[in-house]
């Protein structure tokens, strides 16, 4: 769907092996499939159903998301950073859209 904007907060630097806090937020209605429109028809479900975070190809977290997740989904978790590299964040939409964001982090 259009107008979906991911926001990610990752520190720019870390020491090797440090645990860092990552926050993610993405603009998305997370239409639950439980609501009705003004004519009484069920509004079809359309949610982000999966989120993944990887670092240099290794997985940090893989989240299966259901309609109970609030509009503009927010996720917070911790990652270990073994070396300098790139975090890849991926959100999967029911409609087949995939939204990604990346963040580099320097270990020094």
């Amino acid at each position, binding site marked *: 769907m259009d*107008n979906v*904007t991911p926001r990610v*907060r990752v520190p720019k630097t870390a020491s090797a092996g440090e645990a860092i806090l990552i*926050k993610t*937020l993405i*603009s998305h209605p997370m239409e639950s499939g439980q609501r009705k429109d003004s004519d009484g028809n069920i509004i079809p479900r359309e949610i982000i159903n999966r989120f993944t975070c990887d670092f240099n190809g290794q997985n940090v977290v893989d989240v299966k998301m259901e309609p109970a997740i609030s*509009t*503009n989904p*927010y996720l917070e978790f911790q990652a270990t950073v073994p070396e300098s590299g790139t975090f890849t964040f991926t959100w999967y939409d029911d409609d087949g859209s995939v939204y990604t964001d990346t963040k580099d982090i320097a270990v020094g």
Partner: protein
Amino acid sequence: MTRTTSKGVISAAMLSVLASTAGAEIGDKLVVNGDLELTVEAPAPAFMADTGIKTIYSGWLFRDPDTQKIEMDDFDNPGMLYVDQGAEMWNTPAGTSNKSCADCHGDATETMAGVRATYPKWNEAAGVVRSLQGQIEFCRTEHQGAEPWKYAKAEINAMEAFISMQSRGMPVNVAIDGPAQSTWEQGREIYYTRYGQLELSCANCHEQNYDHYIRSDHLSQGQINGFPVYRLKDTQLTTASGRFVGCVRDTRAETFKADSAEFTALELYVASRGNGLSVEGVSVRH
């Protein structure tokens, strides 16, 4: 102001709308991103001398800690999604002029600083008091030659949020005298008028019963310094005028329209009751 969530306080409050919340923690600090302290408590403006309110409080103080916390970090605050959208729109050409806001107004961090704090505001050329959204619409239709946005709806709310952020931390300072005075007086009249089948005025809840509970809802002073607000209930931005529509509707009345002269007047009056509180940019409420 209390934001006590202990069972005792809540259940006592449920027994009576007039239950007082003893043990109020007045003076909590709203610090955003760990470094920007916003004024959430200030002496009431002089004209409020006969209201019984000596101190004005941001609605932030009346919320539960979980809700308060979301406004204390711009990343946690989902309202910032719309600020980002507004920033993009600021730089996007529109209408027959093919001009963006930036083409005339340049860098919003400079040109829009302080703007939100003084709206609604008398417009000499038009001879009316304009809300910030009214002014945005004027720019859009008259200067950009674009179709107007729908007042108090997604696009214009995002633009208002972006502009409002440029005044974050500045004290609300709307003018109530001079040419704005008659509009301000109209707003005051509306504030004290009972509407709907419930026969409730703004003052009944937000002047006479703030800090009490209406069912499980902790009544604030109805300040609008925090607007536009990201409402956790609606999971989108709500403007002051949009909130007025909701409030008056909830009294079971036919409401004025969000862009009506009446609600612009009310917005000026209610804003003036918050003169001295910080513009919060985009606040978070329940």
